């Protein structure tokens, strides 16, 4: 599965550039209300980016009465078929993460489409707070990191030279 992840919420400084670039890239205006990604601000001092999980069994898609939300095989994103969408807004309360919004002017949802495979927010986040995860992502790296002390211990006692 593919989605945008937060690498470390501590890195987000709340500059909101991701919101501006998302709305700009998709809708040609600078408007956080039209951004799929939101840097959620909890003053004082906390900012956490939040964006669609691209659920493979998406509650928003389940809730849609006309099947206008669907999981796209190529991008691995949950996309909106705007021609089919009737603008009922049922998808919005269905999302447990609050990551889908209704467009303020047009009757379609605003949600992350991974920019077709090259997410702009990830590319232009100044702090490296976001990453584009196309697999199990950092799980395998974290697994190795977690095992390092154990591996070192084994290597010492068994006289093995670790090459990593």
């Amino acid at each position, binding site marked *: 599965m593919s989605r945008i992840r937060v690498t470390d919420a501590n890195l987000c400084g709340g500059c909101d550039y991701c919101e501006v670039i998302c709305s700009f890239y998709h809708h040609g205006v600078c408007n956080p209300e039209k951004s799929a990604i939101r840097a959620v601000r909890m003053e*004082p001092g906390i900012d956490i980016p939040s964006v669609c999980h691209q659920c493979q069994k998406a509650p928003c898609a389940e809730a849609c009465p006309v099947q206008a939300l669907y999981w796209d095989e190529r991008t691995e994103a949950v996309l909106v078929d705007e021609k089919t969408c009737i603008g009922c807004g049922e998808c919005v309360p269905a999302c447990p993460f609050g990551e889908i919004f209704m467009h303020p002017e047009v009757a379609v949802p605003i949600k992350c489409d991974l920019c077709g495979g090259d997410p702009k927010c990830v590319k232009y986040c100044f702090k490296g707070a976001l990453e584009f995860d196309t697999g199990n992502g950092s799980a395998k790296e974290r697994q190795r990191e977690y095992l390092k002390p154990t591996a070192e211990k084994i290597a010492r006692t068994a006289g093995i030279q670790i090459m990593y």
Partner: protein
Amino acid sequence: MYAWTGKILWVDLSNGQIRQEPLTAALQRGFIGGRGINVKLLFDAFEPGTDAFDPANPLLFGSGPLVGTLAPSGGRFNVTTRSPLGYLGDSSCGGHWGRELKMAGYDHIMIVGKAEKPIYLWIQDDQVELRDAGHLWGRDAWTTQVLIREELGDEDIQTVCIGPAGENLVRFANVRTGIKRSAGRTGTGAVMGSKNLKAIAVRGTQGIRIAQPEKFMKAALETAERIEGFKQVFGAVAPQGGTYGQLLFRHNDASMMATRHQQSGYWEAADALDAKVFHEKYRKRMTACSSCPVGCTPYFTIDEGPYKGTYGEIEYEAIASFGSSPDIRDRDVVYKAAVRADELGFDCDSGGRLISFAMELYQRGIISEEDVGFPLHWGDGEAMLKLLDMIAYRQGFGDVLAEGELRAGKIIGRGAEDYVLTMKGVEQHEPLRSVVGHALGQSTSTRGADHLRSSHHAERDSSPEDAEKMFGSKKAADPLAYEGKAPGVIYYEYNAALADMMETCKFLSPWLSPHFMNPEVWAELLTTASGIEFSAEDLLEAAERVINVERVFIAREGVGREDDYPPRREFEDPYPSGPFKGQVLDRAKYDQMLDEYYRLHSWDVETGIPTLEKLRELGLEDVAADLERRKIQ
């Protein structure tokens, strides 16, 4: 309308009238935005001689055309009015309120009159109303913002407000937003308080349109890339980021560290406030203003000791205000004082220097324990903390200090006036004996003692070759030289003004370095964003126009050449220690340098007032006519 929203919100608090006015093309082209348009609107509406606390004194808030866009650091706003402390009240502020104002659909807000009782303004796109603020009056500048969010039910509301200091008309009260952002100097918060205006809450959902999206995006992202190196030093990833991390020792090494009320420029105890310890033990994360790639502001908490539980954000000026200037070496006290000043809502630069003024008077026996209520020795943190609240609530001796250093000196008398250190009524915050260009810039600043109008960085940071290229003399790179300084001060003046007009950050402007944003970059960003053609020359001319309007504004209030000098101490009291021990400014050379500065500006050399020719050349016929009519020359 692209880039700008095209609307000014006009509010009369005396009768509750609220209306929208269009932002004219003349203002856009001639004054750009932010401070520039604010100042022109103020000039046109203000009757010279009006008291700052008179309801007729206009209070302006101004965002800029690049705010809320992809332009890096496009997030600032200016607050402009007739200052109750000096003459021209004007201050720039970061955070997120500037962007929210644009999102709500306004470039500027102009407020006149006075409400009968405390109110706050609530702007939600086109819906604007005045709401009762009786329950907010008296609350500190942070709690007010939290309460407004709760009351109006939206966590994304951005608010500017005043604290108790503004309510009590402390002459250097500030306007606050976020946990610590402020329109700090010149007392704009007191004017807000005099109008019974507690806060302006904003929530906007409208977007900003861009005329040439692809070109604009390219220019903006290229600019962001150039900032990468600076970010590494100043921003979140830096071990000692922010102005606290970067400026403490640089200023001390240059003898620019406010020490014991400018008795010295070198603080022997600077290690006591070493930023490294702050970043390791106190700083929890770094935060950013809207659209800024750097994110230079440390959010910190105090986890142990008598001030455990204190939280806030901090930057260099507070360290000088509450640390080196009153000679306080306990970092917990300094951080606590910074947070307290933010809560109470007054300028740390003025407040800290004022307390140092009182400490010097105490040192010299001009005031005593009887005047203050307790001893007031250098380095007494508890005494300083007590004074902060006394100032904000105008209690006892605090009521005298709340008037600002200049007036306090007169009230105290007994020779106190000899130790007043102000420029155009605003407290001097940096000693200047070893930085000649900086001294000229601070002293000629249109809003009074200030490093943000013009800060001659090249005299400290530049190579002689670069200095010659920029200002015509290798000596411009020597902080002690008087040559090549006047052109430098003007260069920095124009670029600082442009940062204030674009409402992007000065740290990413030629005020500090030309590598990030400069007139060519701003011109490209503004042209592609707005669809209106601006060249670098157009922008520099607009900056010159703004400074000339400011100069006439203060001239109408009686400011002249005699107000363009640093205090006597800078010429007469040699630094007692440090790398520039023995240094003073040379009055004769300063005079010549000031003459050169006026000539380069085409201002009258005897009065410092812009000539009618210069004003007309800049298209300021109305300003020239006004000067002529008032026979101020």
